[in-house]
């Protein structure tokens, strides 16, 4: 099968290029895209990509497969291959370090902005801060994010303003702490988001929802943040 790879080594290449590789896929097996990359790396060890847990938990191998972002380790070939061809590119919109490896600094900077930790200045109880099962339920669909960056790099608003728009991943995390009954910094969190870029650059096109490998819904979380901002300001 034909696999077209995005190759770029800044030390030897003056510009990125696509390299076509013929790969023998074992009969009767539906390999994951990561398995195919591993087969390629066995032959050409200069091919660079990130991977770690190989089961969709660490979020290292986010990449663009035949035009759609996803995790290579949990994406079966049968799902992405079209016309017996697979095109692999790095996540769009972020600077490429080498081959399929991108520089995630901007993505993490946006994540850092939303204060992704519990803020509570009241004296800590002896054992732990308790939550009712109902309050805990509000965090479902939010805490599962693994920061693979598939959503934010599929978002045109993030492509155009990655330094100002927090992006779907960061906003999902922002709402995860806004919705936490144990957090006491809701007012401060909302004040940090009330500008024309951080939240409101979202135009609701839902690319984030369609690519999230964990099946999460950042657009819905962004809607909740907008409602909280609206309630506070009207």
């Amino acid at each position, binding site marked *: 099968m034909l696999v077209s790879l995005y190759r770029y080594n800044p030390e030897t290449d003056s510009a990125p290029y696509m390299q076509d590789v013929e790969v023998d896929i074992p009969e009767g097996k539906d390999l994951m895209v990561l398995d195919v990359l591993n087969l390629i790396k066995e032959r050409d060890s200069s091919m660079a990509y990130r991977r770690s847990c190989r089961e969709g938990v660490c979020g290292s191998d986010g990449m663009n497969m035949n035009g759609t972002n996803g995790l290579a380790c949990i994406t079966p070939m049968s799902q992405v291959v079209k016309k017996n061809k697979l095109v692999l590119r790095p996540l769009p919109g972020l600077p490429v370090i080498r081959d399929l490896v991108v520089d995630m600094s901007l993505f993490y900077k946006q994540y850092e902005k939303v204060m992704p930790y519990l803020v509570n200045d009241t004296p800590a109880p002896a054992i732990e801060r308790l939550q009712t099962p109902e309050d805990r339920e509000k965090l479902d669909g939010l805490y599962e994010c693994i920061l693979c960056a598939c959503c934010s790099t599929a978002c045109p608003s993030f492509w155009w303003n990655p330094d100002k728009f927090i992006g779907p991943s960061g906003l999902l995390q922002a709402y995860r702490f806004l919705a936490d009954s144990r957090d006491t910094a809701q007012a401060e969190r909302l004040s*940090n988001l009330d500008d*024309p*870029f951080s939240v*409101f650059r979202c135009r609701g096109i839902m690319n984030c929802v369609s690519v999230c490998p964990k099946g999460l819904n950042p657009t819905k979380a962004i809607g909740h943040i*907008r409602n909280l901002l609206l309630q506070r300001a009207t």
Partner: protein
Amino acid sequence: MVSSVTNLGRSGVFDWLIQRVTAYVLALYTLFLLGFMVFSDVNYETWAALFSQTWFRIFTLLALLSIGAHAWVGLWTVTTDYIKAMAPRFLIQALCGLTMFVYVIWGIQILWGL
């Protein structure tokens, strides 16, 4: 918090809310005019009679101001998305602002027949 001084209000919620509210005004105005054209005989007399009523002049002015605000929020978003260099971006934003200002004042002149 990202600071910005060229958007309509200083806050993101303000811009968002204004864009939604003005969209409703524009939709209502458009529907009304379409209804008027479908259900009444459109000629100089009926058209002039419609625009001679104060409530309709106010409604039209509201629609004009709504277009101004709605277009400012929208075009400001487009220019900050696609034009990265400060000088051309600010120039185009200023040009859009001037155009909208002229349209509103000109509209008032036409409506009240100064």
